């Protein structure tokens, strides 16, 4: 008999594991789009207030990521892409992720209210609830339209950034929202086309699983067609200008060509070149969003020098 006990089987999460719960890659997109929303607004914001606000928006997005990982731990465990996440890999307990998500949500919303205004904080709170409850808990496992409606959660950050500066909503911030909202479905469905077995295994009703791959190709094309006028309309508002209009026309034309090529292909052709077109369109969609928002930012940066804007 011995008095010694060993705790080797108890998982010991590192700080990095908790950071992974906040989905840092998603946070980087949130930081970028929220920053653009804040900087292109017609009202100036003190740099310290701006930096703090962006940090708390990112923290709120991270908190909703932790809540999503807590809720989706069972399906993350069976998907190749997600099974090494902190909860399915056993590094972090589900309760810890829930606690972290709830605590950071509260901190982020209260601190954003103190740093900027109640309207921006309310939008952030709504975004967290929308992502964690409406998307993760209700829609993701219930409908193949999960991506469409859930995409709204990812579309709110530029609106929140705009609200930090102006304290409200305007046609410009609504169009920035609409741009990400309409961009999300073709972006994720292109991913779903070449990550097929993952969603099959997890039983998540992705469009590819429920309606077939031919229908998904049609959906990608339709949403890309609907996305184009949103981008061009945004370029015509006060946050746009000739530069944005040119960038938007080029990006939308390129995206449409890609979506058309996806529509024209069948599974045999896609299998033959290992989904080269679908992968290329997916990669381009990331560039699309980055350059479109980059163009808004460039207009705002050029304005003090007499360039940019209409």
């Amino acid at each position: 008999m011995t008095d010694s006990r060993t705790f080797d089987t108890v998982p010991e999460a590192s700080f990095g594991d908790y950071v992974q719960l906040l989905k840092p890659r998603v946070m980087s997109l949130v930081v970028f789009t929220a920053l653009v929303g804040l900087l292109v607004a017609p009202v100036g914001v003190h740099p310290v207030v701006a930096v703090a606000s962006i940090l708390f928006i990112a923290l709120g997005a991270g908190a909703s990521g932790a809540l999503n990982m807590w809720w989706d731990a069972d399906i993350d465990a069976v998907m190749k892409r997600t099974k090494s996440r902190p909860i399915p890999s056993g590094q972090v307990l589900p309760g810890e992720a829930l606690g972290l998500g709830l605590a950071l949500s509260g901190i982020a919303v209260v601190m954003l209210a103190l740093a900027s205004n109640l309207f921006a904080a309310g939008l952030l709170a709504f975004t967290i609830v929308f992502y964690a409850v409406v998307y993760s808990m209700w829609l993701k496992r219930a409908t193949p339209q999960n991506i469409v409606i859930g995409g709204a959660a990812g579309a709110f950050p530029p609106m929140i950034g705009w609200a930090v500066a102006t304290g409200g909503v305007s046609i410009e911030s609504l169009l920035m929202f609409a741009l990400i909202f309409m961009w999300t479905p073709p972006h994720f469905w292109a991913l779903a086309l070449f990550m097929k077995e993952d969603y099959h295994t997890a039983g998540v009703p992705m469009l590819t699983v429920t309606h077939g791959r031919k229908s998904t190709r049609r959906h990608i094309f339709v949403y890309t067609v609907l996305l184009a006028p949103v981008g061009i309309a945004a370029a015509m508002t006060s946050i746009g200008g000739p530069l944005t209009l040119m960038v938007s026309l080029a990006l939308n034309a390129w995206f449409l060509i890609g979506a058309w090529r996806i529509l024209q292909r069948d599974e045999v052709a896609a299998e033959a070149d290992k989904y080269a077109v679908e992968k290329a369109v997916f990669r381009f969609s990331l560039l699309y969003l980055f350059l479109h928002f980059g163009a808004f930012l460039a207009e705002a940066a050029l304005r003090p020098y007499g360039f940019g804007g209409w």
Partner: protein
Amino acid sequence: MSDFRPAHEMHVRRFGRNLGVGLALLALLVIVFALTVVKVTRGDPMQAYDHQVRPEMLPLEDPAKVKAP
């Protein structure tokens, strides 16, 4: 004589985690302090009575209560 040196890898891992939490709290402290400085120096609406009645801060519907010192 007992030896208090850490003898397990766990201590090293916990040090990293505690350092991370410590730095995160320090960052929050810096942000809150910087925000406070900015808001106070810009004169955001957060004044109190500060030992002396200020008529302009009393409710408008009851001006009779205001008396010049």
